[in-house]
C-alpha cells in the first residue's frame, strides 16, 4: 500500500483519547452500542449535542456517523480551525456536513506544534493531518472487514459509509469502537489531489453561527463560577519602576476585593530564563481585584503610584539618532556575503544608495490582552487567547516551580493575534495574580493598557546600495539597523539574493528597554517595501522596464546550487507574469497610476499591483490586484479572506501606522490618537491563485509585506514623489499631486 505519498507517522498522535486526561470533553467508550449503519440524513441536527465515541486525539465518532474533529492549533482569525479539520476530513472520507469541529486543548503528547505563528500551521500540518485522517479511515475499514470476514481491500468508502463486495454497508459509527482498538498502521496511501472532495472547496468559518449570534467564544467571554477580575497598574513609561503606592481610596470603592503587588515571581523567572527579558517589564505592578470588570477598571484609576526612572528613558528621536549612527558605523554582523560588494561599487558606472525608515507599531488586536488563571494545589487552570500555549505552559511551570503536567490550558478563539499573542507576558501576570489570591481570576487590559503593554514591531531602517556596470546590476548591499533583534532565518536569502554576483546583507541592533517582538510578517513587513521601492528606482536609473528587470534578475538565480535559496524563480516569474496580465499593467488609462511588487516570504510567492487614482487632487489607493502561489488552496473562501485582510492591513499600516515615544511613554493609547485603516480607505482587492499541486503554504502573512511597496510605487507614479519613510501620511507634502506642467 506504500506510495510516494505515504509517510511514516508518529504513533504518539494516535494514542487513544483516554490519554486526553483533564480534557473532560470526551465521552467513554462503553456508553453506546453500535447498531444499524447510517449517515446523517438531516444536516439540521445540532452536531455539538450528539454523544460521541472516542477514536483518537483528533477524532471522535457518533453512532450515526457524525464526526467531531479536534482542531489542535490556536485560532487567531487565520482560519485554521476550519482548514486543518478539512484536511483530516478529506482523508477520513466523511461529508463536511457531518463534521463538528472542537478546539483541542494544549496537549503536547498528542499534538505537535500547537502554535499560531509564521503562517506555518497548514504547511507543517499538511502531511500529519492527512496521515491522521487516512490512518483512521484504514482502521475503520479494517474493523468493518473483520466483522464481515472479508479482506479490507474489497471494501470501499464514501462519506463515512463502508461498503463490501456484496453490497453490505457499515457506517463509521458502527465500527468506531472496534477500530479504536486496532494497531495503528505504519503506512497509508493518501489521496491524489484530483480526488479531493473537501480540500479546494469553499467552506465557511466553523464558528460563523456563534460569531454572528454573539455566543461566548473569546478570552474576554470566558467565565467560571467564583471568578474575579483583575486590572493591573503598570509603569506608565518604559524604563520606570514602582517605588511606592497608596491604595486607600481604591480599597474603599465598590466591589473591590483586594489590592496586591506582583512582579517578584516574574523577576525570579527572568533570572532563570533571560530570553524573555525583552518581552516583559520586571517592575513591580499593582493589581486591583474586584467583583466585576468595571469595578476593577474604575478602582485602578484611584491607585496613587510613584515611579522612578530606573533606566534610560527613550524617545523616538533617540531611536532615530541611534539607528542613523549605526547605519554610518561599522558594527555590523554579516548575514550573507557573495562576491565582493566593495569592489563592485569601486568599479561601477553608477551607484544608487537609499535609506528607508519605519516606526514602532503596536499590534492593536481588536480583543485587548487578557487571560484566565486558577492556580490551585492540584492543578493550574489556564484559559484564553494565546498563540504559543506550549511555550507559555513551560514558563508558568518554571515560574511556579510546578510540573507542566499540572497545567490544563484551554485556547479560546482570539480576537486577533498578529504576533502579539506569541508572548504570554499577560499569561504570567494572570498566573502570578491567581497564585497570590488563590482564586479563579481574569486579568483584563483596557485598550490603553494594551497599547502601553506593547511588544511592538520596532522601528527599523534599511540602507540599500547597488552598483550598475555596463547596464547590469553588479552589486547589492543591504544594511539593517533595528531595535533589540534583527532579521532571522532565511530572510537574508530572499530575492534578490542569488541574482546578483556581489551581494551582502549586514545587520546591527540597539538594545532598547522598550519591549519588542514579532508583528505580522516580522522584518519583511517593512523590508519588502524598502527593497521593492529600491528596485523601481534602480530600473528608472537604468532606464529599463521595471518588470523585465525583475524577470532578468530571476533568470540568474540557481536554487539548485544554493540550498539557502528557498524561493523558486520559476514560481516567482509566474506570479509576476500573471499579475502583469490580470492587473492590465501598462495598459491602463492615464488617470490610473500603477505600482508593482513581487515578493516571497513565509514560503508563499506573491505579486501585487496597486492602482492609484486622483480624487479631489489627492492620490487614492483604489485597488490591489494580488496574485498568489501558495500551492494547493485548502479553503479558497478562507484563503481569500486572509489575502484581502493581509493586503488591506499592509496598506493601512504603511499609510497610517506609527507609535512614537517621549521619555519612555507611548504617545498614543487608543484609537482617537492611533489611526487604523477603516472602511472608506480600504481598496478593492482582486485575487488570483496560481493553480498547481504543490503542498500548501500559509496565508496569514505573505500578502501583507508587498502591499506597502506596491502603493509606494504607485504613489510615486501618481505624484512624482518617492516615499522613503512610513507611514506615508507623515509626509503629507509628498502625497500632493503636482500640477500637470510639473509632472509632464
Amino acid at each position: 500500500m506504500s506510495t510516494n505519498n505515504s509517510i511514516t507517522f508518529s504513533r504518539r498522535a494516535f494514542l487513544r483519547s483516554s490519554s486526553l486526561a483533564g480534557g473532560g470533553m470526551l465521552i467513554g467508550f462503553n456508553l453506546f452500542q453500535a447498531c444499524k449503519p447510517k449517515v446523517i440524513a438531516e444536516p439540521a441536527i445540532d452536531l455539538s449535542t450528539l454523544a460521541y465515541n472516542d477514536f483518537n486525539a483528533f477524532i471522535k465518532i457518533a453512532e450515526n456517523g457524525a464526526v467531531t474533529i479536534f482542531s489542535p492549533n490556536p485560532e487567531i482569525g487565520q482560519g485554521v480551525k476550519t482548514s486543518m479539520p478539512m484536511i483530516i476530513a478529506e482523508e477520513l472520507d466523511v461529508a463536511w456536513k457531518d463534521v463538528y469541529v472542537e478546539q483541542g486543548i494544549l496537549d503536547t503528547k498528542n499534538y505537535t506544534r500547537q502554535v499560531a505563528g509564521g503562517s506555518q500551521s497548514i504547511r507543517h500540518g499538511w502531511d500529519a493531518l492527512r496521515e491522521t485522517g487516512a490512518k483512521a479511515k484504514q482502521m475503520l475499514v479494517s474493523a468493518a472487514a473483520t466483522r464481515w470476514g472479508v479482506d479490507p481491500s474489497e471494501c470501499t468508502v464514501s462519506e463515512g459509509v463502508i461498503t463490501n463486495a456484496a453490497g453490505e454497508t457499515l457506517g463509521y459509527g458502527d465500527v468506531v469502537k472496534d477500530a479504536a482498538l486496532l494497531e495503528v498502521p505504519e503506512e497509508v496511501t493518501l489521496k491524489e489531489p484530483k480526488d479531493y472532495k473537501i480540500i479546494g472547496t469553499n467552506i465557511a468559518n466553523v464558528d460563523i453561527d456563534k460569531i454572528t449570534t454573539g455566543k461566548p467564544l473569546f478570552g474576554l467571554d470566558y467565565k467560571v463560577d467564583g471568578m474575579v477580575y483583575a486590572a493591573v497598574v503598570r509603569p506608565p513609561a518604559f524604563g520606570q519602576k514602582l517605588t511606592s503606592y497608596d491604595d486607600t481610596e481604591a480599597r474603599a470603592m465598590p466591589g473591590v476585593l483586594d489590592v496586591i503587588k506582583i512582579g517578584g515571581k516574574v523577576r525570579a523567572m527572568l533570572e532563570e530564563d533571560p530570553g524573555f527579558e525583552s518581552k516583559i517589564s520586571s517592575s513591580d505592578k499593582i493589581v486591583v481585584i474586584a467583583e466585576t470588570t468595571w469595578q476593577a477598571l474604575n478602582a485602578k484609576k484611584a491607585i496613587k503610584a510613584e515611579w522612578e526612572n530606573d533606566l534610560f528613558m527613550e524617545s523616538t528621536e533617540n531611536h532615530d539618532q541611534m539607528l542613523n549612527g549605526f547605519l554610518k558605523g561599522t558594527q555590523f554582523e554579516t548575514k550573507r556575503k557573495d562576491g565582493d560588494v566593495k569592489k563592485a561599487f569601486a568599479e561601477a558606472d553608477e551607484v544608487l544608495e537609499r535609506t528607508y525608515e519605519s516606526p514602532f507599531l503596536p499590534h492593536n488586536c481588536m480583543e485587548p490582552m487578557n487571560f484566565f488563571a486558577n492556580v490551585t494545589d492540584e492543578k493550574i487552570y489556564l484559559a484564553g487567547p494565546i498563540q504559543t500555549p506550549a511555550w507559555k505552559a513551560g514558563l508558568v511551570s518554571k515560574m511556579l516551580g510546578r510540573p507542566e503536567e499540572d497545567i490544563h490550558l484551554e485556547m479560546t478563539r482570539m480576537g486577533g493575534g498578529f504576533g502579539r499573542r506569541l508572548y504570554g507576558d499577560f499569561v504570567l501576570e494572570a498566573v502570578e495574580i491567581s497564585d497570590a489570591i488563590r482564586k479563579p481570576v481574569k486579568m483584563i487590559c483596557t485598550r490603553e493598557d494594551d497599547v502601553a503593554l506593547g511588544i511592538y514591531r520596532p522601528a527599523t531602517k534599511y540602507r540599500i546600495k547597488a552598483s550598475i556596470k555596463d547596464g547590469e546590476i553588479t552589486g547589492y548591499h543591504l544594511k539593517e539597523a533595528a531595535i533589540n533583534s534583527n532579521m532571522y532565518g532565511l530572510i537574508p536569502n530572499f530575492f534578490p539574493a542569488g541574482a546578483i554576483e556581489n551581494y551582502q546583507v549586514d545587520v546591527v541592533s540597539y538594545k532598547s528597554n522598550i519591549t519588542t517582538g514579532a508583528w505580522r510578517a516580522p522584518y519583511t513587513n517593512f523590508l519588502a517595501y524598502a527593497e521593492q521601492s529600491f528596485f523601481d528606482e534602480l530600473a528608472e536609473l537604468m532606464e529599463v522596464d521595471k518588470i523585465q528587470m525583475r524577470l532578468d534578475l530571476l533568470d540568474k538565480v540557481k536554487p539548485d546550487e544554493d540550498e539557502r535559496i528557498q524561493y523558486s524563480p520559476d514560481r516567482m516569474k509566474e506570479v509576476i507574469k500573471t499579475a502583469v496580465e490580470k492587473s492590465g499593467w501598462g495598459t491602463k488609462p492615464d488617470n490610473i497610476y500603477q505600482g508593482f511588487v513581487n515578493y516571497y516570504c513565509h514560503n508563499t510567492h506573491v505579486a501585487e499591483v496597486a492602482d492609484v487614482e486622483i480624487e479631489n487632487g489627492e492620490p487614492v489607493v483604489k485597488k490591489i490586484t494580488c496574485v498568489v502561489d501558495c500551492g494547493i488552496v485548502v479553503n479558497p473562501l478562507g484563503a481569500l479572506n486572509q489575502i484581502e485582510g493581509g493586503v488591506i492591513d499592509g496598506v493601512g499600516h504603511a499609510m497610517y501606522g506609527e507609535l512614537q515615544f517621549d521619555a519612555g511613554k507611548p504617545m498614543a493609547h487608543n484609537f482617537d490618537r492611533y489611526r487604523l485603516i477603516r472602511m472608506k480607505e480600504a481598496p478593492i482587492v482582486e485575487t488570483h491563485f496560481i493553480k498547481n499541486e504543490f503542498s500548501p503554504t500559509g496565508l496569514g502573512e505573505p500578502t501583507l509585506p508587498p502591499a506597502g511597496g506596491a502603493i509606494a510605487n504607485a504613489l510615486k507614479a501618481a505624484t512624482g514623489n518617492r516615499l522613503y519613510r512610513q507611514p506615508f501620511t507623515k509626509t503629507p507634502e509628498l502625497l500632493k499631486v503636482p500640477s500637470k506642467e510639473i509632472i509632464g
Partner: protein
Amino acid sequence: MPTYQINVNGESRTVDVTEDTPVLWVLRDHLDLVGTKYGCGIGQCGACTIHVDGTAMRSCSLTLSQIDGKSITTIEGLSEDGTHPVQKAWKEVDVPQCGYCQAGQIMTASAFLDSNENPSEEDVKNAMHGNICRCASYTRIHKAVMIAAENMD
C-alpha cells in the same frame, strides 16, 4: 448599590450596579450577554454597538440613566435564530476573520438598513466607516451589507 430596571432583547431585567457603570459592562458582566464586545471604551471602534430604540449606539459610552425607559437590542436578540437578513448575509459572504468586531459591525449595519432602504455603495461605506475591523475584513463587510440591503423586509 442602586437597582436598575432595563429592557433588553424584549425582557425586563433588574441589575444592581453603580450608576456610572457603562451599559457595555452591565450587559457583559451582569446579564451574561457577552456578544457585545469591548474594543476601546471611548466610542471609537464600534465593537460595542447595540440598538437603543432601534438606533445604533456605542454601549461603552452609555450609562444606565441614558437608556432609562428605552429598549435595548444586542446581537443575541437581533433575531431568535440568527436569521436576520444581515446575519444571513454575513454567513453567505463568510465575513469574519477573527470575528471579534463582527457583532458590532452587524448591529451597525442592521440599524442602518432599517432606516435606509436602497443604500448606494457609498452610503454603506459611510455608515460602516465608524466600525474598525483590525483584521480588515472590510471588503466582505461591504459586500454583506449590500446583499442584506436587498433582503431586508
